[in-house]
């Protein structure tokens, strides 16, 4: 076809121009923040760390995730697989461990923490379980004048963070400090106070009840021999016993059944209690493992043997003594979509052991909630909970954390807490719990001089830093030796520069464009093109580097002045270097810093505070 560039004049376009004024658009571009359930502003706090503003970085974290010191050690880090850096290189920015840097190096924050007012608002909230979800609710409601009462079964607060995460990963002092920040606002924390009856609790006349009791029931493995020995342990209960010093040793040879993150904690804890040979037994091949890649790495570094394709068949117990476990050796057919299409048993094997720890999952359980109170349970005996408001079918009763939708992780529980706090506030003030403020987005020009931006846009080719850890001899001396030491100053300086500042957004104004091609010519990843009007798949195909990742958005401008072509940008691979804006002669491309404004309970309580937020 001859190259005929269309003349001036705009026909009806096939695709609506992208509306970048909707907060959702630029929110999604900041992949780490978008992937985080609590939407922590990652690029913002990484920049603060790079400037040595550790306390500011800590407080920025605390706004959304409330436990920076805890999460900087043990977060499930959904941000990291989402990190844009991982699309241009092998490894993402070490976001989680940078969070820990902010926590380790901060100054005293007492005067910057939220405080509860002297004058209470007269509303009383009961919370079941002193885990991360309930604490998050208290964090948001105490400053508003609520009187919060937590009922905790154990003699210490922290829930799963305390009982299931071994202290060599999460030291008690970190937990105590961050839980203290919340409890010290004046929460009525009642330890050793298990709630035995929901009905009795409701009868006490609280304005709202929040259930954050977790998923405390470890799944069992009811196969032959299970009940013939006392050396077979259920993972989460066993970890809890270790945490409270009820268990102080284990046999020399240990088998862990299951390959989730709990299994990783069980095998590493076993090594510290005297085990010499620990095998983690997996039913399926490695690509189906539930454990995070980094937790597997940490376990393997400690010489834990991970054995695949072994399906448990029976425990071998002779005269009351556990001798080992019998496994079926499996073979699987796996298709190109990584699905098992067929499986067969090819062998059987007995693996000797002294102890077995079962880590095959956990469930929430509510034996203490009477079923005639109006709180509906579904056919799997799981409470029916609204995913947005966290309200159960009984108005005023809310669920969060693992208690709401089954086992997730700490950061999800925190986000549940934020959302439940909004609902509780609405409920206590006679408002519709579904009536919630929408997110807002602020954009700020980042241009300082003709060629200067107020973010670091020089691409740093450094590889991800590795966190130094205690050597393999010394780390097993004591259960409480924290394995990871945290980044050194030099490592921090290199790692922060790996962040691509995805919140420095490329903002396009179509009527300023003179179609000079400067942006397209300079783009280091070929994510831009000016294309004739077409449907989205055609535009995605028309880019020099085809936009194949349909999970990521395509920016499409309105028709350009001279030729009515459209400016198209693939958000997937942009590295936010700012070169398009720097080479743009008319400012049609501009780098603007986006900040997503997320409403909390305090914003629902105070319209002025929300309006002033920026």
């Amino acid at each position: 076809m001859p190259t005929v560039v269309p003349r001036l004049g705009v026909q009806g376009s096939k695709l609506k121009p992208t509306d970048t004024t909707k907060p959702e658009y630029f929110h999604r571009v900041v992949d780490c923040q978008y992937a985080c359930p609590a939407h922590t502003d990652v690029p913002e706090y990484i920049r603060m760390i790079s400037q040595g503003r550790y306390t500011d970085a800590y407080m920025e974290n605390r706004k959304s995730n409330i436990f920076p010191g805890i999460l900087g050690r043990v977060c499930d880090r959904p941000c990291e697989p989402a990190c844009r850096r991982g699309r241009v290189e092998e490894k993402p920015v070490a976001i989680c461990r940078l969070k820990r840097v902010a926590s380790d190096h901060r100054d005293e924050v007492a005067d910057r923490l939220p405080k509860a007012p002297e004058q209470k608002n007269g509303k009383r909230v009961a919370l079941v379980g002193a885990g991360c979800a309930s604490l998050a609710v208290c964090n948001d409601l105490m400053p508003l004048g609520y009187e919060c009462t937590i009922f905790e079964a154990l003699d210490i607060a922290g829930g799963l963070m305390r009982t299931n995460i071994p202290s060599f990963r999460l030291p008690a002092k970190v937990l105590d400090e961050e839980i203290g920040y919340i409890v010290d606002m004046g929460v009525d924390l009642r330890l050793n106070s298990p709630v035995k009856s929901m009905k009795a609790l409701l009868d006490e006349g609280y304005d709202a009840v929040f259930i954050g009791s977790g998923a405390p029931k470890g799944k069992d493995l009811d196969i032959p021999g299970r009940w013939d020995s006392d050396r077979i342990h259920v993972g989460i209960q066993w970890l809890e016993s270790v945490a409270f010093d009820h268990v102080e040793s284990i046999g020399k040879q240990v088998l862990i059944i299951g390959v989730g993150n709990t299994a990783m904690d069980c095998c590493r804890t076993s090594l510290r209690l005297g085990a010499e040979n620990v095998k983690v037994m997996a039913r399926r091949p490695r690509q189906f493992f539930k454990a995070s890649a980094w937790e597997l790495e940490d376990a393997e570094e400690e010489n834990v043997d991970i054995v695949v394709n072994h399906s448990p068949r029976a425990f071998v117990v002779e005269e009351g003594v556990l001798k080992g476990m019998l496994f079926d050796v499996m073979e699987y057919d796996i298709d190109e979509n990584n699905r098992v299409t067929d499986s067969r048993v090819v062998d059987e094997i007995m693996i000797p052991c002294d102890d077995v720890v079962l880590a095959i999952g956990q469930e929430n359980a509510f034996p203490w909630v009477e079923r005639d109170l109006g709180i509906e349970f579904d056919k799997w005996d799981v409470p029916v909970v609204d995913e947005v408001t966290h309200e159960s079918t009984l108005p005023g009763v809310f669920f969060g954390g693992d208690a709401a939708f089954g086992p997730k992780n700490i950061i999800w529980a925190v986000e549940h807490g934020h959302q439940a706090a909004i609902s509780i506030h609405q409920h206590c003030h006679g408002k519709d719990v579904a009536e919630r403020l929408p997110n807002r987005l602020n954009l700020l020009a980042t241009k300082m001089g003709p060629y200067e931006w107020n973010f670091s846009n020089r691409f740093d080719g450094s590889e991800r830093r590795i966190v130094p850890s205690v050597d393999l001899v010394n780390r097993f001396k004591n259960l409480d030796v924290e394995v990871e030491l945290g980044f050194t100053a030099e490592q921090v300086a290199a790692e922060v520069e790996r962040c691509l500042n995805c919140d420095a957004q490329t903002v396009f104004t179509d009527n300023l464009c003179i179609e000079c091609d400067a942006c397209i010519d300079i783009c280091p990843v070929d994510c831009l093109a000016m294309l004739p009007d077409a449907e989205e798949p055609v535009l995605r195909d028309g880019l020099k580097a085809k936009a194949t990742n349909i999970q990521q958005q395509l920016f499409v401008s309105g028709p350009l002045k001279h030729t009515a072509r459209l400016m198209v940008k693939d958000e997937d691979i942009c590295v936010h270097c700012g070169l398009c804006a720097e080479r743009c002669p008319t400012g049609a491309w501009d780098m603007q810093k986006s900040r997503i404004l997320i409403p909390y309970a305090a914003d629902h309580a105070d319209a002025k505070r929300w309006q002033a937020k920026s």
Partner: protein
Amino acid sequence: MSFVSKPRIIHKSLKRNALGLTVRDYEGVATTLCAGCGHDSITAAIVQAFWEMDMPAQQVAKMSGIGCSSKTTGYFLSAAHGVNSVHGRMPSVTTGANAARRDLTYIGISGDGDSMSIGLGQFAHVIRRNLDMLYMIENNGVYGLTKGQFSASADLGSQTKKGEANQQPPIDPVKASLAMGASFVARAFSGDKEQLVPLIKAGLRHKGFALLDVISPCVTFNDHATSTKSYAYTREYYHPAIHADFIPPSEEIVARYDEGETMDVQLHDGSHVILRKVDKDYDPTDRGRAFNFLMDAQDRGEVVTGLLYIDQKQGDMHQRSGTASKPLGRMEHQELCPGSEVLKDLQKAYR
């Protein structure tokens, strides 16, 4: 001028050519030209063309003179040979280089000032010799480096930013080179790479002198509403008269062309240029008609682009001079300088 270097990120979907190189491997240093300069788009087109041709950088010599345009050679093919010469003298230096090393591919980058003013004499003679080179003029109608005075290619009546109109008639590189007997004459626009890239490839493969005049708006001094070399004006009056598809010798002609609409020109190295005539009655092998067509288009104010004239029959400088097929620069001293006895015999022949 950019203060951020272009990061070396190789996107996974970036293709590799027959040499295993990506288009990024054909880049040069970062541009120091104004943001939005047409010259940078031309650089990108040159990079693309060389990459598509699987050209080894060490087979290329980049030649230039003085001016914004002449900085371009720094921005592509870092590993190529090159000379950044004196103002307007790029043709002589290229002639010398080509005389010694006829085995290299020559690309000269000049501007309207470098070629149509100070270098006009050199321009005429390099055409006359039919030197085997691609001669690109990045034509913006102004002297950018000295802050926007009219150049010799500025159109009558085109105004400066401050509103003064040009009173001097232009020298059009295309008409001038046609009149001087050039064997390949083309015009393109920096804002249309689909047309520009094949023209660069055809010009590089043409055996002899190939002129490629590229309208390249000066975004700082000549992109205002009363300029005739602006992005907006060029797009408004853009008239692609004839389009050239370049097909290298190794490839078959697979595209289907309507009969009577196209003309297949085979170049000396076996590659083909398929000319697609947007204007049906245009004949790019008829120098006289080409000239008339351009005159008429000029009266209509059109910016005519495409491969406007091609002549495969003229021999290049080496053929006309009967020089050895082995590059002089590759010869041993003894072969190149056979001694005073031989010289004496030669002189005898002229006595």
